[in-house]
């Protein structure tokens, strides 16, 4: 039988969000889709990424910023929502019982929180911004692949348009 590779969506004691295997994340998302289909509710998937490339020569600072970002995201969502970090340093958030309109609202709130937060930084002013791609089940997609693809595309679109924005399906 499959075992859980990590504790998903749980912030560890040191404030970091544990990286979640993509397959396991998709497994959780598939479960969510099935539950939402069974019990008829909306939920939304947010993919969050820091704007700009991390500084390669200062990995410690990058890690600290990522850890802090995970903590801030965790602080902005409900205890029942899912949060995880993927290996490509982007975060995903699954907001239960949340339609697109409310997901955008949450996304904007998170974006503003990060925009006004000052990260500890040895090199710059510590101000960072994020871009967010949002898709909603079943409004934008009703399967795992569609949801992930949709959110990632929207994230890329937000970044292409200059970042620091929440992108939703048109």
């Amino acid at each position, binding site marked *: *039988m499959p075992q859980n590779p990590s504790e998903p969506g749980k912030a560890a004691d040191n404030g970091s969000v544990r990286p979640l295997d993509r397959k396991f994340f*998709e497994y959780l998302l598939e479960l969510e889709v*099935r539950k*939402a289909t069974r019990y008829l509710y*909306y939920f939304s998937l947010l993919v969050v990424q820091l704007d700009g490339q991390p500084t390669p020569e200062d990995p410690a600072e990058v890690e600290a910023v990522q850890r802090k970002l995970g903590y801030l995201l965790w602080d902005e969502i409900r205890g029942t929502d899912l949060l995880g970090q993927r290996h490509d340093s982007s975060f995903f958030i699954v907001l239960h019982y949340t339609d697109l309109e409310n997901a955008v609202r949450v996304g904007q709130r998170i974006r503003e929180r990060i925009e006004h937060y000052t990260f500890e930084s040895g090199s710059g002013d510590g101000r960072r911004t994020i871009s967010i791609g949002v898709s909603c089940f*079943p*409004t934008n997609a*009703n*399967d795992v692949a569609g949801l992930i693809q949709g959110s990632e595309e929207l994230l890329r679109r937000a970044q292409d348009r200059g970042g620091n924005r929440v992108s939703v399906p048109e």
Partner: protein
Amino acid sequence: MEKFFHNIPDSLTKENRLANVRLGEIPMDRGKIYLVSSDPIMRNYLRSYISHFDHKVLTPAKPENFWDDLKALSPSLVIYDLWKNNSGTVQNLQNLIQLEKTIPVILLAGEMQLPMIQELEGSDQWKVIKKPFLPQDLKTSILEALGKEREIVLTPAQVLRPSFTNTKKGYHPQLLLESSQRMQDVRAVIDHVANTDVTILIRGESGTGKELAARSIFESSNRASKPFITVLCPAIPEGLLESELFGYEKGSFTGAFRRRPGKFEIANHGTIFLDEIGDIPFELQSKLLHVLQRGEFALIGGNEQKVDVRILAATNKDLEKAVAEGMFREDLYYRLNVVSIFLPPLRERREDIPVLIECFFQKYNEQYNKEYHELTASTMRLLLDYDWPGNVRELENLIKRVVIMGNPDTLVHNYLNENVKKIKPRLAQNRPAPTDPLPLPAGRPRDSAAAPSALRSLKEVAREAMRKAEGEAILKALEQTHWNRKAAARILEISYKALLYKIRQCNLDGEPDSSTPDP
């Protein structure tokens, strides 16, 4: 003991069928994997999981036969799941050490079994996967063992729904193990229409496999990767059906605390199966017609939105009669009835019975870890002669009971005797005594047209009584209000429209002389 098989095609001889069910029928080219597990849950899980890699998975009919089967089948890989420590296990492991020289072996072992494995000489050559394990670990080990380097991409849907994806080729025992021409015709129609977008109406008695047919159509269609949503219309209270199907906006009625999607929205780009559509309320039929005609629907209290859903519907009711009685919208009927598939009752395709029996025996023997039961010729004769009013579902339940309880012949005899006794009085009134001295009577009347009016179903009697009572109440209210229909509707606490419909239904259309015009 004489064994009996009846009208089974050559391709489905007993040995072939057993082998087919045991070994899987689909030819594969990626090597045979021999799977041994005494734990039925684990066995089913592993078989489903491994089958996605296009490997042919073989399992021994009985765990104790594993060594004999293994020699005969010469697989490319053996996966041995250690369940309990016992002398048989140790013996098997020692045999596997010898086998390792020619065939790779993967052992799945729990914490308790690891010391036992380490004690065995030569066990260090094995690939041992400790339980619980990740599917990915097993996949990697299989690939390594078989020397396959190509990555196998498995979607979560395949991991989670192995049985569904297995049926991608339309495999459904009850539908595919047909030997009758009529079921072959059904199969041909399903194959023909599956990959189109037309609405299909599936008809047939209860238990004939309407939902299986719908699922088969869905899985053979180009929407197979999209959702398949089933709605059992009579199971949802009349008042809730609309919100279940179409969803609602927040605040659209008391208790609508949050926006909720409907089944149609969730099934977008997929398929929705409306089971027992004959029971859908008249008021809702127009909304359904709107979706069918324009591909649009509106959440309760919300705006219209487009939806792309293929509709499959099923019913065991006489829809033409319902249309004639004004209980079912004629336009909806024609919209649904683009292609109609009729699933014949089991009594009209008796040649399928032995095949189905075999199939169900295999299924439940494996599920309950029981030994195979053989039926005597006389028992099989009884099963073939019985009319199966509950169709395939009834047969399946009987076989399930036989597998669990054992003693098949006595159980089948008792079951059939009891059921025949129940239907005998009806038979006596409806049919002349059969001249053919069969051990069982041929069955019970099925259509109401064949039965005299005194033997109407309880449902019909109740419906008529209800209509009569309603008619009396409506007439009383109309007389009281001097045929002012609006006032009468208020007294009866129904809508004006509903009253008009009921008046027509109860044939109260005739205006009395003293009627007053409606305001």
